[in-house]
């Protein structure tokens, strides 16, 4: 309660100190205070009144216990497990990009978005899946609203996966291009993972912790070794690559990882990245609490008018698209209806894990925002604006940034790059490098200076590690989904163990995200400008699908009077994403609208300012992006309409309000 009051006080301080430099402490305090209040009251209201969680009802983990996936798990352990599954690079990247509007819009959206939207979504889906023996989102959509909705939801998930993988891979490319240190460390993670895989499978079967401890030690050695590689005139050229080469390398890697046996690469990588994730996030929290750095970024920048260099578009709707993970993330609905519901010991644990787990991710997003906001604004824009805007060197960059009203000198930019062991930090758009610089500054201040370069590469390494793990698992999941869909056309294609089908499906998925990745690397505006909004839109639209399913569950369980808890965020997410989608397709500003950009390229080609092959490619890509955006919007609207029809039928009593829950079984646990 005291903390909640402190939170209210912190909001007051934030409100009063606009235009001055304030400490990150107020941001953290305001967020934590709000989370505690929301958890104490709102999540209790959801648990007791809306869902009617009942500890006397046996959970799937108890009824179907098999010691493998259905395992009753202690709630704090499950909290950690669920958190590690939902949080990754997403909450670290989005807030850093959205910092171009200043720290205030991002903070407000992250805190209030999660309390009323994201955490509610995760909680309702976890609840629904728990009452249905751990069924997936797609299965629930199919059972509660019909087979067409189920199929649409599945296609939407597949498409989102492709965009997600492309944009995250682009973040890694921008962090690793021309960086021998980073490339060396990341390359090392592959043999390390394979070594761990053999350890756990062949040499010492099942000894997963031993293998992980070994992996972490080797990873640290690779990190330190990277410095020697970068400083060696003989070795460094072998590890310096252009963005395009790294992109093709990642595509090849994604394909190989998807067809190799799981135990060899994917499973060990998953363990390694889980431990690194928990370790790095605890370290970041500790660092911020110890240092409490002042925020140098203004609360609101001039770029709310839509002229921002990192990505185009006004504060509304683009701040709410750019920050998806951390405020509301549709992707979570897949995890909340996957492994977690099969491990809940008691029904009421769902509150801590579903609602509380998402609050924790939101807190990670707030810390990422702090790490970006403590940078000098000039430095922030030097790292994040595209090269086409900044010009080719530090002098032109400093000139351009001064034109925006932020002071920065060429020497500062160069000095910073040198201090983190890089040749240049210009135009490393994508969030990872600016976050890494911010974190390096926090860690240096907290745990001693002199190691700035090491901290920077530590931060780059763990972000790239999460992302490559997502690339592995995402490609594989995409492959399974594609095989399932293809199997409905021709049976043998659906067999996931049939090698030709596996190779074909993996190839198609990799080709799909690889295409968008290469397009992003070659994009003159910096691919983040077109791909990140596309990812945000698709992720939020998946949230809309999940909230539709959630609303259906609530109405069908006879609680229509409480349906506003999901209808409220649903409406907001739809307004935001449909507006953003519409603007990305039809806006007349060529930096913002895909079609307008295509039109400028046509003009340039007619005037002879661009060769026809390159122009044709740009035009094709613009139109493709426009079609993809429109398809997302149409699929979502179809799901919303199908769900709304179901709601009306039930509310007008033309259809019985009966949810497809598993029958009540009394728990055998005491108390």
């Amino acid at each position, binding site marked *: 309660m005291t903390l909640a009051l402190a939170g209210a006080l912190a909001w007051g301080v934030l409100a009063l100190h606009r235009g001055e430099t304030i400490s990150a402490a107020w941001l953290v305090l305001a967020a934590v205070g709000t989370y505690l209040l929301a958890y104490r009251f709102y999540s209790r209201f959801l648990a007791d009144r809306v869902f009617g969680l009942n500890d006397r009802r046996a959970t799937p983990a108890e009824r179907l216990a098999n010691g493998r996936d259905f395992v009753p798990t202690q709630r704090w352990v499950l909290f950690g*497990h669920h958190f590690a599954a939902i949080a990754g690079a997403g909450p670290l990247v989005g807030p850093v990009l959205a910092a171009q509007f200043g720290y205030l819009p991002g903070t407000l959206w992250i805190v209030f978005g999660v309390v009323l939207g994201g955490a509610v979504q995760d909680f309702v889906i976890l609840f629904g899946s728990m009452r249905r023996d751990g069924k997936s989102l797609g299965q629930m959509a199919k059972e509660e609203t019909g087979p067409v909705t189920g199929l649409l939801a599945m296609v939407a998930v597949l498409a989102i996966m492709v965009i997600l993988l492309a944009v995250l891979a682009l973040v890694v490319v921008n962090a690793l291009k021309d960086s021998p240190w980073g490339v060396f460390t990341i390359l090392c993670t592959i043999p390390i993972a394979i070594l761990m895989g053999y350890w756990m499978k062949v040499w010492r079967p099942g000894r997963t912790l031993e293998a992980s401890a070994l992996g972490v030690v080797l990873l640290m050695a690779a990190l330190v070794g990277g410095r020697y590689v970068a400083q060696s005139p003989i070795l460094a050229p072998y590890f310096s690559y252009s963005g395009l080469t790294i992109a093709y390398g990642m595509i090849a890697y994604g394909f190989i990882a998807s067809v190799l046996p799981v135990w060899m690469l994917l499973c060990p990588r998953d363990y390694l990245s889980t431990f690194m994730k928990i370790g790095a996030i605890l370290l970041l929290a500790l660092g911020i609490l110890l240092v409490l750095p002042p925020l140098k970024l203004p609360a609101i920048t001039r770029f709310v008018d839509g002229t921002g260099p990192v990505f185009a578009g006004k504060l509304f709707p683009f701040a709410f698209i750019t920050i998806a993970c951390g405020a509301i993330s549709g992707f979570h609905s897949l995890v909340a209806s996957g492994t977690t519901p099969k491990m809940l010991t008691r029904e009421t644990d769902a509150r801590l894990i579903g609602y509380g787990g998402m609050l924790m991710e939101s807190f990670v997003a707030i810390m990422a925002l702090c790490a970006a906001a403590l940078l000098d604004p000039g430095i922030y824009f030097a790292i994040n604006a595209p090269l086409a805007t900044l010009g080719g060197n530090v002098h032109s960059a400093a000139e351009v940034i001064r034109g925006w009203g932020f002071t920065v000198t060429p020497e500062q930019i160069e000095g910073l790059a040198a201090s983190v062991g890089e040749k240049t930090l210009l135009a490393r758009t994508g969030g990872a490098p600016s976050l890494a610089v911010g974190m390096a500054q926090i860690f240096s201040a907290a745990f001693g200076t002199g190691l700035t370069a090491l901290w920077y590469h530590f931060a780059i390494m763990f972000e790239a590690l999460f992302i490559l793990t*997502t690339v592995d698992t995402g490609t594989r999941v995409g492959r399974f989904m594609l095989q399932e869909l293809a199997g409905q056309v021709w049976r043998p294609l659906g067999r996931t163990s049939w090698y030709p089908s596996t190779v074909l499906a993996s190839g198609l998925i990799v080709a799909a995200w690889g295409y968008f990745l290469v397009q992003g690397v070659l994009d003159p505006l910096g691919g983040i400008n077109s791909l990140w909004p596309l990812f945000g839109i698709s992720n939020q639209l998946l949230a809309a699908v999940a909230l539709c399913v959630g609303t259906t569950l609530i109405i069908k369980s006879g609680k229509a009077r409480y349906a506003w808890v999901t209808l409220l965020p649903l409406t907001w997410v739809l307004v935001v994403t449909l507006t953003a989608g519409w603007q990305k397709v039809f806006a007349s500003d060529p930096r913002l609208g895909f079609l307008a950009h295509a039109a400028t390229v046509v003009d340039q080609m007619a005037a002879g300012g661009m060769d026809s092959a390159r122009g044709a490619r740009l035009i094709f890509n613009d139109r493709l992006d426009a079609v993809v955006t429109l398809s997302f919007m149409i699929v979502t609207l179809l799901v919303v309409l199908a769900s709304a029809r179901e709601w009306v039928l039930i509310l007008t009593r033309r259809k019985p309000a009966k949810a497809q829950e598993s029958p009540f079984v009394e728990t055998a646990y005491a108390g």
Partner: protein
Amino acid sequence: MLGRRTGWVAKFLGTLRRVAGMPDYDAHVDHLRRCHPEIPIPNEREFYDDFVRARYGDGPTRCC
């Protein structure tokens, strides 16, 4: 090395394992003995293979 321990070390390592979603052989053997005495108990290698297959068999396990 990090396998069989007792007391709080075992408890801590078990927690780590479950948080990371790692298999727990002893718990599985325990479960089989109690609930399915008719099924033969797999060795550690067979159990690990089955576990990995089941865990990564379907559906996303990770978010972005």
